[in-house]
């Protein structure tokens, strides 16, 4: 902040480079807070990856057993819970039976939340044990996937309620990951979608469809797997918003629809904050050029 001491009064632009970063923090805070307070909403247009994910879940025959892995924690829930909610509603509406699990310890409660706020809210007729099962978390990261690829009951002795898998009709016949029609990993990093590709998809490439929801940070890592190893992929909160639109278009709900619209709500602040980011980068460069030309003139 004090680089310009004693060399005359620098121009505004040159001084800009040394601005207290708390002003930038404030600008960022406002750019996100204001759109939320003003409830800014913008239209979304589903892209090919969101469509591929939607189609993958649609293409599996009605009544199939799908596995949804909650491989994230509350730190990424802002991006991923909207995808999880929409996916759970989609699978249930399509008539699929859902098995929930988590590779991240904190993911288990996020799965519970999706069950409570989406599955039981919009599909109250579903019965535990025959229509859905919550297996919960197991320690071991990719070791869990690798073991499940050949022997699910060896990894999961019971569900989260302590009921043996053999007593739950939905999972009693599940021997390995190949017995699922579709696996979805809602993934925030390691372990997550990449490990599902490496340890489950590779072991049984044709056995099931594999889709994922990914945080913005992890997308790059997963892109090479799409569309061959990953049949669908939801990219960051935009992917969530696009997918929500597709799901809502085909399977609308009558009340509490906001539970399936969180992704679109969070797209409002994106526009303003992204413009701020672009503005900041441009301003930073202008300040650099201004500072340099001033330095050159001296």
């Amino acid at each position, binding site marked *: 902040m004090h680089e310009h001491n004693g060399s005359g009064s620098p121009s505004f632009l040159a001084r800009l480079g040394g601005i207290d970063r708390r002003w930038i923090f404030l600008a960022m805070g406002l750019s996100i807070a204001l759109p939320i*307070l003003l409830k800014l909403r913008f239209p979304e247009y589903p892209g090919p990856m969101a469509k591929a994910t939607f189609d993958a879940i649609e293409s599996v025959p009605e009544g199939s057993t799908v596995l949804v892995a909650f491989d994230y924690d509350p730190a990424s829930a802002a991006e991923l819970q909207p995808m999880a909610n929409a996916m759970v509603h989609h699978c249930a509406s399509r008539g699929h039976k859902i098995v929930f699990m988590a590779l991240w*310890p904190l993911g288990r409660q996020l799965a519970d939340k999706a069950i409570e706020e989406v599955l039981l809210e919009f599909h109250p007729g579903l019965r535990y044990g025959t229509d859905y099962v919550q297996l919960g978390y197991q320690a071991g990261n*990719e070791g869990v996937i690798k073991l499940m690829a050949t022997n699910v009951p060896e990894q999961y002795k019971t569900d989260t309620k302590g009921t043996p898998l053999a007593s739950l009709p939905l999972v009693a016949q599940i021997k390995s990951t190949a017995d699922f029609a579709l696996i979805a990993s809602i993934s925030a990093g390691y372990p997550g979608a990449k490990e599902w590709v490496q340890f489950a998809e590779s072991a049984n490439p044709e056995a099931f469809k594999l889709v994922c929801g990914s945080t*913005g940070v992890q997308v790059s890592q997963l892109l090479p797997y799409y569309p061959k190893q990953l049949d669908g992929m939801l990219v960051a909160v935009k992917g969530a918003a696009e997918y929500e639109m597709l799901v809502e278009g085909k399977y609308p709900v009558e009340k509490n629809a906001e539970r399936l619209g969180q992704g679109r709500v969070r797209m409002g602040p*994106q526009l303003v*904050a992204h413009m701020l980011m672009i503005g900041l980068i441009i301003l930073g460069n202008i300040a650099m050029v201004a500072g340099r030309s001033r330095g050159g003139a001296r």
Partner: protein
Amino acid sequence: MSDHGSNEPGPQVQAPRKSYRFLWLSLAVLGLSVFALRTASAAQAQGADPAAAQDLWKTIGIWCAAFMTLGILSFLYKDNPFYKVCESILIGVSAAYWMVNGFWSTLVPNLFAKLAPTTVREIALPDLPVSATPGTDMALAFVPLVLGFMLLWRLAPRGGWIAVWPLAFIIGTTAGMRLVASIEADLLAQTVATVRPLVAFDKATEAFDFWATVGAVTSVAGVLSVLTYFFFSVEHKGAVGATARLGVWFLMITFGSAFGLTVMGRITLLAQRFEFLFKEWLGIV
């Protein structure tokens, strides 16, 4: 802002300036009074209803979460005791959370249930299925039990070599798993995905597809040029140098795109925290 974000908490925390101490104190008192008022009125409104206790705990919870959120955010202004308290709570709570989860979800059903099935059935898992081979299960479960104790030996001041055995087991298993998986899912599958026709035709009309062809050529050129850049056994001069430079360009575009997507993620996380503050806590949205 040279002090901001520094890792030297000592002086500021030990002797905060009076004005700041006053600020934090008044903030805390203000928050607590509003909280007490809100909870008291909520409790009064609901009377002695059994659900009221739950609602009360929810109200307390939301206020607690709001304070935690603001506590962490306060670091943006400057490092302060409020932030440090929140950070300390986070560290303690999350370590215990992981340990408890590991214990009940994995250690009890997958280790203790094999070593002492009757006891586990009596105490925690009444419906635990009876194994067909309890003897073998128990014998095999001794291996992770012993390795587990050896791993915990790391905490002891002496005998560091003891923890190397389980470490060797963990490394070996990971290596065995990863060797196969990375060759199959990454090396082979990605190579196969790269090697594809450079000239593309429309599937329906069988006409020459210009943009798909450009895409295919770009993909192959990208993979090969980036690999050339990573290949350090040959000096990056002449044709190799030019290819490597193209590889750098591809990488820059890759990182630029990754940056854009990362920004998006970070903004979403903050948006969710603001949503919580405005909606669940203050109820103004």
